[in-house]
């Protein structure tokens, strides 16, 4: 058996539990087992903070006579999830050859609404017009009214131009593709990584989560195994709509791989640099 086949037999495993793909929720649930807490946590952190998406980053106001201030509106616009399936075709502005921004590193969106009727005009993401074919505010079907941005009364208007850029949540949370990442291990607290506050009875005060069904309960007289380590990690990734949750997981893993590969490359350079200084050869290590 070669090394890769061996790793597939003995290495980490994935059990897909649920893939939700409805207008209300888009999520993927899975069990990551036979791996380290550190690995599972690294994946969680990368999915939240390092998977790139598109988000509005610059707003130029032509006019704003609504009751909301320019800064307030600009912040709201930044947080609107934009469909980022095509984010791979966009470059980071900092890596682009242009001076400020250009079609290669940004997408322009326009919002131009004026209330002319006697009743309140609701400005939503449906009024936000994108110049790109797919990078546009996320809408779940034809019945979705969009996200409310502002309300206008008669005579008020908002006219602005937005520049959406590629980024990651390390820079600003608006670029996170995740609405939430559920992460649990050891549902029965066998490892005692947590200490419950108990008034009378643990079982009634701390109900076991749905993931409890995957692991045996702790017997009353079971001795504590202080060498035990967590092995199964229950994860649910819910997207904002910017990216497909399945895509968030695969991209997250790819980014983690790339991160490690870069370190590997740089360490090799260090090793080669020092190799010239001569070091005794390794004998039968690993």
């Amino acid at each position, binding site marked *: 058996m070669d090394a890769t086949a061996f790793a597939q037999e003995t*290495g980490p495993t994935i059990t897909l539990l649920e893939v939700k793909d409805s207008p209300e929720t888009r999520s993927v649930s899975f069990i990551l087992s036979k791996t380290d807490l*550190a*690995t599972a946590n690294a994946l969680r952190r990368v999915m939240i903070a390092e998977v790139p998406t598109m988000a509005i980053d610059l707003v130029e106001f032509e006019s704003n006579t609504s009751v909301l201030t320019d800064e307030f509106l600009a912040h709201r616009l930044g947080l609107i999830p934009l469909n980022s399936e095509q984010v791979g075709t966009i470059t980071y502005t*900092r890596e682009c050859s242009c001076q400020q921004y250009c079609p290669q590193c940004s997408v322009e969106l326009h919002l131009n609404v004026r209330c002319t009727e006697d009743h309140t005009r609701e400005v939503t993401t449906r009024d936000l017009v994108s110049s790109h074919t797919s990078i546009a505010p996320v809408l779940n079907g034809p019945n979705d009214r969009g996200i409310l941005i502002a309300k206008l009364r008669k005579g008020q208007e908002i006219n602005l131009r937005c520049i959406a850029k590629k980024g990651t949540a390390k820079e600003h949370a608006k670029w996170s593709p995740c609405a939430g990442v559920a992460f649990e291990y050891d549902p029965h607290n066998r490892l005692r990584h947590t200490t419950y506050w108990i008034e009378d009875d643990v079982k009634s005060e701390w109900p076991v989560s749905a993931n409890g069904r995957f692991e045996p309960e702790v017997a009353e007289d079971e001795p504590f195994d202080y060498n035990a380590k967590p092995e199964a990690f229950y994860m649910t990734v819910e997207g904002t709509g910017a990216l497909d949750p*399945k895509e968030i997981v695969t991209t997250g893993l790819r980014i983690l791989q790339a991160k*490690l590969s870069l370190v*590997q490359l*740089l360490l090799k350079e260090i090793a080669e640099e*020092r190799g010239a200084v001569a070091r005794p050869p390794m004998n039968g290590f690993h």
Partner: protein
Amino acid sequence: MANAPPTWELLLVPEGMKKITMEMDTKIPNAATFTVLKEDHTLGNLLRMQLLKNPKVIFAGYKMPHPLEHQFVLKIQTTPDTSPLDVLQHEIANLIQEVGTIKLKFENALTSRTLNPGEAPIPMHLPMRERRDF
């Protein structure tokens, strides 16, 4: 926001600086300190825990010296028959393999799900960690 630091400050390695530097310890044998720029707990903790699994590693620890400086330092001490750089390279290779396997298995799980939807197996009991008989 006139004095705000530039946003790429937490992502880009400054020109003329190396992302990773290694400093051999002058007082402790087989020990080295690696400084990794523009990386955080995601990588720091991952490397530390992986290194600690290696029996040739006597010490492995990491810290972020300051929360506003985007870098971490990783200290490794090994047994005399190897070196911190060698074990780190070895364990990085193991991690790349590990993450690669997870990615492959996740993609396989997705494909088999699309091939026979509604037949997603939900195991009631995963192979549990070995329980000891006391």
